[in-house]
């Protein structure tokens, strides 16, 4: 009867619907990770998509920490193939990956990024040292030998009389961000080390040393402005009294609105960062899940595009986006290792 037919048809459609979930292999690369690497990765992805027969990779900006978390959740279609990171993968993350069955990861370093301490062009530039930054932004600051107090500094002048009498208001990324990690490591720890007793502590109690040197104040002087660096720039533009912490590429893109301040006497310029003179600069990476190479179409070709000279070279389009290229020799090394997937992270 018609009714039975209808029923059968319904059953069929339901079965078909259920089938949708039984996924075929993905034909599109999925990338997650750092918001600092995001502009570079998207630029490569777009070029890759438009100049090859492969689909354009899908990229989500999740922050380095979030990206590595998703990346290390396991292998398979529902996990990303590549994660961008604005810092090297940490031991704990490697362990987590291994625990979830992600045992084979290739690390590719793509270049450098300086972390700038910037403010609005409408305001006066400020010259600052890493030690001053530490004193202004750390959660606890040393008060004499071996003693710590909760950061009492309210204005820059409190930190150092040579600095202006302005409320300390620094907009920076949250702890999920690689930029934040790098800033803590390079700038704060750099300043922290200037205190001899703290430097000495490093050898005795590394964890405590890190806890002191990397903790950022939570009493309002440091404002977590989210992963979105663009937002920080907009806020700085609007509030000339505030300072912001973000990657050099954003300074490069917005040089008409904001200015990078000198840290330890060094100006955040392309040349200074590239040469290593600017103290707060870091390497940028992406990580590839080796097990996905060959399964998901185009990963090898994508890596090749990323590591080609027309992308990450001195004249490449990534340099236009603000990436600071590695020297030729280093580029060749990473490019080769990426191709052969030999730069595996030790599990």
């Amino acid at each position, binding site marked *: 009867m018609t009714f039975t037919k209808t029923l059968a048809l319904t059953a069929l459609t339901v079965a078909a619907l259920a089938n949708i979930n039984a996924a075929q292999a993905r034909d*599109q690369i999925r990338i997650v990770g750092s918001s600092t690497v*995001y502009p570079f990765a998207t630029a490569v992805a*777009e070029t890759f998509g438009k*100049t090859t027969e492969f689909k354009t990779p*899908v990229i*989500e*900006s999740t922050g380095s920490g979030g990206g590595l978390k998703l990346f290390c959740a396991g292998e398979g279609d529902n996990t990303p193939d590549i994660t961008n990171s604005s810092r090297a993968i940490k031991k704990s993350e490697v362990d987590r990956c291994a625990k979830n069955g992600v045992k084979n990861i290739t690390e590719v370093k793509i270049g450098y990024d300086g972390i700038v301490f910037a403010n609005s062009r409408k305001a006066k530039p400020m010259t600052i040292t890493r030690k001053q930054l530490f004193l202004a932004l750390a959660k606890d600051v040393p008060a004499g030998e071996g003693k710590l107090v909760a950061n009492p500094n309210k204005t820059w002048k409190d930190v150092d009389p040579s600095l202006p009498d302005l409320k300390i208001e620094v907009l920076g990324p949250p702890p999920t961000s690689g930029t934040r990690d790098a800033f803590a490591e390079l700038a704060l720890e750099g300043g922290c080390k200037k205190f001899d007793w703290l430097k000495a502590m490093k050898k005795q109690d590394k964890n405590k040393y890190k806890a002191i040197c990397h903790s950022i104040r939570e009493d309002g002087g440091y404002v977590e402005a989210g992963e979105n660096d663009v937002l920080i720039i907009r806020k700085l533009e609007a509030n000339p009294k505030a300072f912001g912490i973000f990657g050099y590429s954003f300074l490069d893109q917005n040089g*008409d609105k904001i200015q990078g301040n000198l840290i330890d006497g060094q100006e955040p310029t392309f040349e200074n960062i590239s040469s290593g003179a600017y103290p707060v600069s870091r390497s940028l990476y992406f990580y590839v899940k080796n097990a996905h190479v060959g399964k998901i179409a185009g990963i090898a070709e994508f890596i090749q595009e990323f590591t080609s000279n027309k992308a990450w070279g001195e004249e490449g389009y990534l340099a236009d986006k603000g990436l600071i290229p590695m020297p030729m020799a280093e580029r060749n090394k990473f490019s080769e290792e990426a191709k052969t997937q030999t730069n595996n992270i030790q599990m």
Partner: protein
Amino acid sequence: MTDTIDTSLSIPKNTSEIVHQGLKKRYAAEKRFRRYGVVAVCVALLGLVVLFSSILTKGYTAFYQTNIQLDITFDESVIDPKGTRKTKDLSSADYAALLKKAMRTQFPEVKTRRDKKKLYNLVSSTAVFALRAKTMADPSIIGQTHSLWLTASDDVDMLIKGHIPRELPENERRISNKEISWVDQLIEAGSLEKQFNRQFFSAGDSREPEAAGIKGAIIGSFYTLLVTLLLTFPTSVAAAIYLEEFAPKNRWTAMIEVNINNLAAVPSIVFGLLGLAIFLNVMHLPRSAPIVGGLVLALMTLPTIIIASRAALKSVPPSIRAAALGLGATRMQTVFHHVLPLAMPGIMTGTIIGMAQALGETAPLLMIGMVAFIVDVPGGPTDPSTVLPVQIFLWADAPERAFVERTSAAILVLLGFLVSMNALAIFLRKKFERHW
């Protein structure tokens, strides 16, 4: 009789006088009150006007794009030195070299490396893709010289459109004096023009604002709404029919009703949380896919359409039901043969309005990963894609100045869709409006 009234209980005797004295004040109050009303309506309408005009003035320029005309020589020695004409070779050829050469020919006086780099940057970095596509489509072009209009870079575009004022000091402007002089030369030669921005409607997202388009987002929105419609329309009409025509009036149906009303007022982001927790984390449906977005939006629009459908069913007079039942039709037949067809226009109107609401929704889709950078136009509801409002959200956050204009233009397109959907709903209502 008069003496039965207690004279100490006075009724106003000189009403007229007192009223007359108070009139001026009362009319002043009346006028004031009325003025508040006028002001309120004006404020609300002003809000509307300011909103629309600010977006319109920011966005209309995006429908035009600055293009540069260049004489490109498709030099065989550059593109296909081996002369194979094979797709593989053509695919990976250095088309940028063609462009650079054309630029150098146009501006022979530019010599230094730095200046040359700046010069090349006048044309969008995506123009290369256009040259590649052209060559791949018709390899016979190799060896010929063609005068082509190529997309200018966003900085040039912004300069031409006046978003980068020429009066700014050079160090505060993203485009140098030298570059401006080249642009002026091009304008003089008639090879720099604002033309209709076809790419905006035919391309997917891009990192380069001048190449970014909304096609991917529109198709993504289309698939998402398709999924929403397929899921929500039958279920909500069925639910409305049950509740309005069949359900006994008891505590259970009352609970369902209260439930539907409450669901209609649940913040949309909560539906996003539901989608994340259940569709992604429990059911493992693909991230960033219209199918998940559609599911979430279907649940969200369900109450809207149920409520509208019930109202439409309710408006069918009982006499129609009585007539059918009187002829011996079953209740089911009565409903499906008579009541439902008559209620259909109302249901359609409600559905369109619900769909319009779903089209503009952003927050729940952020929760299910539809905020990725997706260039390719999705081919179906399981491909990763974004939707128009999320694309707007993404562009609103992009650093490039030119994206402000694109964002506004995308908003205009979105509003265009919404207005036409609502106009359709009004049209349907007007056309099929029945007075019983």
